[in-house]
């Protein structure tokens, strides 16, 4: 993903050379980035959960025989009785307003693929996020040490 600002590779040694102001700015920046990354992580987890629910629902649907009586939701509080017609064809939302008709097996496969994709994204993001968090923590430690140095009357 394109970085918003030119990212500098900060090594622990560099922090010793920075002034107090620079350290503060660094820590704040790192904190903001950690929060952003945490939000992204949460978003991925939510999306993942939704996909799992969809997958379970699909699986459940495949177990139902044709002609089975069911209640169809029209609104959040209005259901109509109906019969299950064809449980083998499912419409899959693939994004940007496109829907594809797939067979039940393909639908399940789609859910699995998406869940795996999200899982790998989640893992990658966790790696980046923990690195950023370590950086933020280090910056915090050095900042505190520097502050203590500057106010020895404490």
């Amino acid at each position, binding site marked *: *993903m*394109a970085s*918003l600002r030119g990212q500098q590779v900060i090594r622990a040694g560099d922090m010793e050379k920075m002034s107090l102001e620079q350290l503060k700015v660094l820590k704040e920046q790192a904190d903001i980035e950690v929060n952003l990354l945490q939000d992204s992580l949460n978003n991925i987890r939510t999306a993942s959960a939704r996909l799992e629910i969809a997958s379970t629902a699909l699986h459940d649907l495949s177990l139902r025989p044709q002609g089975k009586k069911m209640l169809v939701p029209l609104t959040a509080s209005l259901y109509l009785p109906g019969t299950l017609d064809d449980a083998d064809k499912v*419409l899959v939302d*693939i*994004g*940007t*307003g*496109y*829907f*594809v*008709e*797939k067979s039940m097996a393909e639908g399940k496969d*789609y859910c699995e693929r998406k869940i795996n994709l999200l899982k790998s994204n989640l893992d990658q993001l966790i790696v980046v996020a923990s690195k950023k968090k370590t950086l933020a923590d280090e910056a915090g430690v050095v900042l505190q040490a520097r502050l203590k140095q500057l106010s020895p009357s404490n």
Partner: protein
Amino acid sequence: MSSSSTALRELQRDLENKANDLSKLQKDIAKNHQVRKKYTIQLGENELVLKELDLLNEDANVYKLIGPVLVKQDLAEANANVRKRIEYISAESKRLDASLQDLEEKKYSKREAELMGRMK
């Protein structure tokens, strides 16, 4: 002396103008980032859709949601539409990149000019 105070006032005004220009540039850069982010997200989504469409058989049914209506679409047409959209977004992104570069350069040169003005 009055001449030096007017010169001072002029300098101050000049500095203010430069500071305003700088903040406007910052705002433009921030907006650029926002639009860029939106485009990146849309591009990603469209590429996902394209991948799914590629996996389909020739005879699979594709529908597009237009308002409250699901309209049956031809697979070839859907492919073409998504590809065109991806091209458009990529072109817009490149244009934004170029203008971002431009804005950043202007910002740096203005900042330098402002610092010089302050030092005087």
